[in-house]
């Protein structure tokens, strides 16, 4: 029993970590890794993720790096594979843009209908187009993003796999993001949800966005009922690395507490001040 609980926890943690990778690695890698988690090949999922991050030169935070090492270790893979990753305190990633100007929900309800009976506790399904490429080996854009919210009785990896599979069978290309209760959505998912439209199922499911993205959806889709929403284009803010753990409190205020970017800005400021001082000295002496 305890082994099963441990294994289930690991699947969910891998799933959650993949949510943080959305938009940072290519969509096929995300879908493949989710499938591997769902079919209990956790070591392969972790290795696929690390391989894509390493080959794509995708930066990870020190927290993410530690977390990945532990995931590799727990899946009985080789933690040293993570040693090749770019670890950065801060970085700038190009922002993602989402749009529902063209309806991304077309055909989705029909495609998912055969699978819905097998999926537990699906609260909502939303669709949106992502206009920007993801990862170092992106596929063609626009890319359909399907956001599924499940309740506490649902299984995130299984839902992601089955939904992606049902869409693929219907010939719909999509990357599927399944949000489960208690897991904070990333900026990527909030921005995607804010521009997304709900899929309305015959049994009435989907009329309301799920709890995780309801707040994000509200400002963008407030006027009118869901099926009369105006098209929305949302630009996500500069993608900052998501936090794995709550940030450690900073003690002291010395320069050693600053990030790389802050240090760089401080150095530029010092240089500019020195140049100004030099100029004013030479003017006064001239």
């Amino acid at each position, binding site marked *: 029993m305890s082994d099963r609980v441990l294994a289930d926890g690991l699947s969910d943690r891998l799933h959650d970590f993949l949510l943080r990778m959305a938009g940072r690695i*290519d969509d*096929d*890698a995300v879908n*493949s890794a989710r499938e591997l988690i769902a079919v209990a090949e956790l070591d*392969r999922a972790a*290795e*696929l993720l*690390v*391989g*894509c991050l*390493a*080959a*794509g*030169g995708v930066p990870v935070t020190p927290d993410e790096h530690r977390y990945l090492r532990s995931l590799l270790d727990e899946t009985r*893979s*080789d933690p*040293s*594979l993570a040693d*090749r990753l770019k670890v950065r305190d801060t970085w700038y990633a190009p922002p993602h843009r989402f749009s529902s100007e063209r309806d991304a929900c077309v055909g989705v309800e029909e495609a998912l209908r055969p699978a819905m009976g097998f999926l537990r506790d699906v609260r909502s399904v939303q669709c949106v187009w992502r206009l920007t*490429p993801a990862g*170092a*080996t*992106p*596929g*063609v854009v626009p890319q359909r993003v399907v956001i599924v919210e499940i309740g506490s009785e649902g299984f995130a990896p299984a839902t992601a796999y089955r939904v992606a599979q049902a869409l693929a069978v219907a010939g719909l290309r999509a990357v599927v993001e399944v949000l489960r209760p208690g897991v904070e959505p990333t900026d990527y998912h909030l921005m995607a949800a804010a521009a997304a439209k709900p899929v309305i199922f015959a049994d009435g499911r989907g009329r309301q966005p799920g709890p995780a993205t309801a707040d994000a959806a509200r400002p963008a889709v407030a006027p009118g009922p869901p099926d009369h929403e105006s098209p929305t284009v949302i630009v996500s803010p500069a993608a900052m690395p998501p936090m794995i753990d709550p940030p450690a409190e900073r003690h002291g205020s010395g320069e050693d507490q600053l990030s790389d970017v802050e240090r760089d800005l401080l150095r530029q400021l010092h240089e500019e001040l020195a140049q100004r001082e030099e100029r004013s000295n030479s003017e006064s002496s001239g």
Partner: protein
Amino acid sequence: MQDDAELNAHDLLLRLAGRLPDDQLWRLRDWLASGALPVLRRVLPRALLRDRIGLTAEEHDLLRAIGADPGLTSSVLGVLTVPPHRYTFTPELPGQETSGDPVGVVLGATLHGRIGVGDVRCSWRKAHTEAPRRIVLVGATVDRHRLTGELQRMLRALGEHEPCVEVLPREFELTAYHLAALDMSELLCLGAAELVNG
């Protein structure tokens, strides 16, 4: 066999065309092109083991030469000869003669006259249960694994999810798969290098 692990890995992945699933093959080639050989070293033998794909003695040597775990490598099945592939090839898709091939045009424009590149050809692979798939065949003298990665990324951005790019060295002993594809291929362009593969 070369001393360079990356060259050996490229040659082994060439030999695995049509044997390892396309989705894994393009990904492993991308990792090789991008310097992620340590991950490839771990993942490739496991992929062969899982799918029960056998290797010839020479291919076993290549797998060991890229630094794969000898324990895992030893478990990979051995075969005397490469099993026959299940594909047929055609130089053009039906309807292409009227619609043209925009992706082929981009490939030709990119590689035309490029140093180190010989002939660039395209064939279409067909199998009973699969949609036709473009096979790009390029003769090249240098940086073959990086050229593979570059072309794969370009093809993906143009909508081909699992690109099949075969960048062949002059000295490469063509497999039955490559010979069949070259036999039914169409020339897209010529680079600056003089190579004859077909």
